[in-house]
């Protein structure tokens, strides 16, 4: 697979564009999400809102390391930035949150459950951990079709999701099959309100990699450049045939679990500490200091992103809601009986 290797191995130039692209995705996601938050507070959203604030560097680094149209990205609850980096249009998000029937889920499912499975973006179910084996299966299919190597499948989970049997079974199966898979654990120190000491007893979730026989990579999730390089390397290793790679990113969720939650259980000391840094601010400084972008570029990106968000919201808001009268109430694709039962 030499040509694939080349395509993603960062040369100095590629790396620069890549970092810029990651940052832009983070920025677009952040602005979109803060808009969603306002809309939620204004009662304009259908259902709950779950944001990825503080996790954009991790998520976008992953999304941007994957190749849309070839790879698989099973985004999870806090992956707006990764989705954006992977190439999901913002309108998929606003349509879903605002209940447009034109969204990818047609109003049948909502918010972060959206996806386009045929475009390498499976639509998550709520049950945590369940997407790990699903991605493994998508990769198995490709192997059976003879189109592996060449594809990477990736998914993100939280620290809490590592306690699920599904996570364990899925990662283990992927390891047994030596699939080109990347599982990123965004360890944001809490699962809803539950701190990590009630979730696991090991020193570092990274200690699990060896037990599964997979590659292990730890990273400071607030550090954009570190995320780009570590997650990029994990994706590359998977792509090059080294089997599943487990990335554990340390960071903090800078919002509540959902917008209904103020996250007041997160101690101030944590917020004030290194984990509480805002990866977008860190990234911005890194971009300027490292000469990846100028202050003007940053400003323009922000303006562009704000306009784009505005447009995506405006468009979705004008679109019709699903109509129960024209809804096709069928759970199977094939009609075997007149009644459906």
């Amino acid at each position: 697979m030499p040509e694939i290797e080349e395509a993603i191995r960062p040369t100095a130039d590629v790396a620069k564009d890549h970092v810029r692209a990651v940052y832009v995705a983070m920025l677009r996601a952040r602005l979109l999400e803060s808009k969603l938050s306002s809309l939620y507070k204004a009662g304009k959203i259908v259902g709950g809102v779950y944001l990825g604030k503080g996790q954009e560097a991790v998520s976008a680094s992953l999304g941007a390391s994957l190749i849309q149209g070839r790879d698989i990205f099973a985004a999870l609850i806090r992956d707006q930035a990764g989705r954006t980096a992977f190439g999901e249009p913002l309108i998929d998000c606003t349509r879903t949150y605002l209940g447009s029937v034109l969204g990818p889920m047609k109003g049948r499912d909502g918010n972060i459950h959206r996806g386009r499975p045929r475009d390498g973006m499976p639509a998550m179910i709520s049950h945590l951990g369940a997407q790990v084996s699903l991605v493994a299966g998508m990769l198995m299919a490709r192997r059976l079709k003879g189109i592996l190597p060449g594809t990477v499948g990736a998914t993100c989970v939280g620290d809490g999701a590592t306690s699920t049997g599904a996570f364990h079974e899925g990662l283990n199966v992927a390891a047994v099959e030596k699939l080109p898979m990347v599982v990123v654990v965004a360890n944001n120190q809490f699962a809803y309100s539950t701190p990590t000491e009630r979730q696991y007893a090991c020193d570092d979730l990274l200690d699990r990699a060896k037990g599964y026989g997979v590659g292990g990579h730890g990273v400071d999730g607030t550090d954009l450049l570190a995320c780009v390089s570590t997650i990029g390397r994990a994706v590359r290793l998977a792509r090059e045939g080294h089997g599943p790679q487990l990335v554990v990113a340390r960071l903090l969720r800078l919002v509540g679990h959902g917008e209904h939650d103020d996250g007041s259980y997160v101690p101030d000391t944590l917020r004030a500490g290194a984990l509480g840094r805002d990866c977008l601010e860190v990234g911005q400084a890194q971009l300027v200091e490292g000469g990846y972008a100028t202050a003007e570029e940053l400003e323009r990106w922000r303006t562009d992103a704000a306009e784009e968000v505005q447009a995506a919201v405006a468009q979705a808001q004008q679109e019709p809601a699903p109509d129960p009268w024209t809804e096709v109430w069928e759970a199977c694709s094939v009609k075997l009986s007149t009644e459906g039962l």
Partner: protein
Amino acid sequence: MSVTYVDAILEAQETLLRDDPRVFLYGQDIGKFGGAFKATKGLAEKFPGRVLDSPISEDAMMGLAVGAAIEGMRPIVEMQFADFSSIGFNQIINQAATHYYRTGVPVPLTVRLPSGGTPGSGPFHSQSMEAIYAHYPGLVVVTPATVSDAYHMLIDAVKLDDPVIYCEHKFLYRWLKSNRINGDGLPIGKARITRPGKHATVVTYSAMVHEAVRAAERLKEESGWEIEVVDLRSVKPLDIDTVLASVARTGRLLALGEAFPWGGVTAEVVARVCADGFHLLDAPPRRLNARDTPVPYHPKLWAAHRPTPESICLALRELLAF
């Protein structure tokens, strides 16, 4: 001062923790945080060490509860949503449900399942799983529809020596209020005539009791029909005697539920009534369930997915017209 349905659940747990040292609570975010729906608010502080946050491990949560129950404790497990009990399914149906028959040692645990649909909750935060659990010998499945039942049936569930699946309806949590918790002393296993009538019987449970009453009131106003509403309260055991007595009075049966249409409580009710009270029926019995798709996310779809006062009225009119 009024008590909501979820307050009643909180209060019952407080009472149980206070009065019975064998009781403890186990579930995700139920400790200091007080639970996703605040059904355990303040309990961790009041009963230190007895209200425990669990990892996201529904299988282990249930296995742990069975183990504790075998040792004589009375665990109450909160599933964050009924839908996630699918992960604890194996431990519930194979470990908890079979234990007494296999070993002679009962398993006094209670699983609280925040159940049923609310607008905008979608396919994985709206499920009604009572029929799944009721299928299994060894489980008791209760579905309180009132504030008082929410309280008393939880107390009774925990006192029972057998595993109880306690299905609490999320839609009722804050919407349903009562001036006080006044029990009428009905035990688990007994249904209640929520609204007396004489022209048709609606047998239902949980949140649908209220939709049925609404439909009944509408039909009364509009056309003078007197619809009897039977609240099953527990779906296993199912109080077929009360149901039959009602059908004997009215001659007509509508079995109503919010769950998926294949099988389930409504099928069991109709099948039992037809087997044991065939001669009582003056018209073919009817069923009304949710539609045969996952529970949709958008409120507009959701409202058309589950039975409503409108669709219940429609079904009743057809039943009455027979």
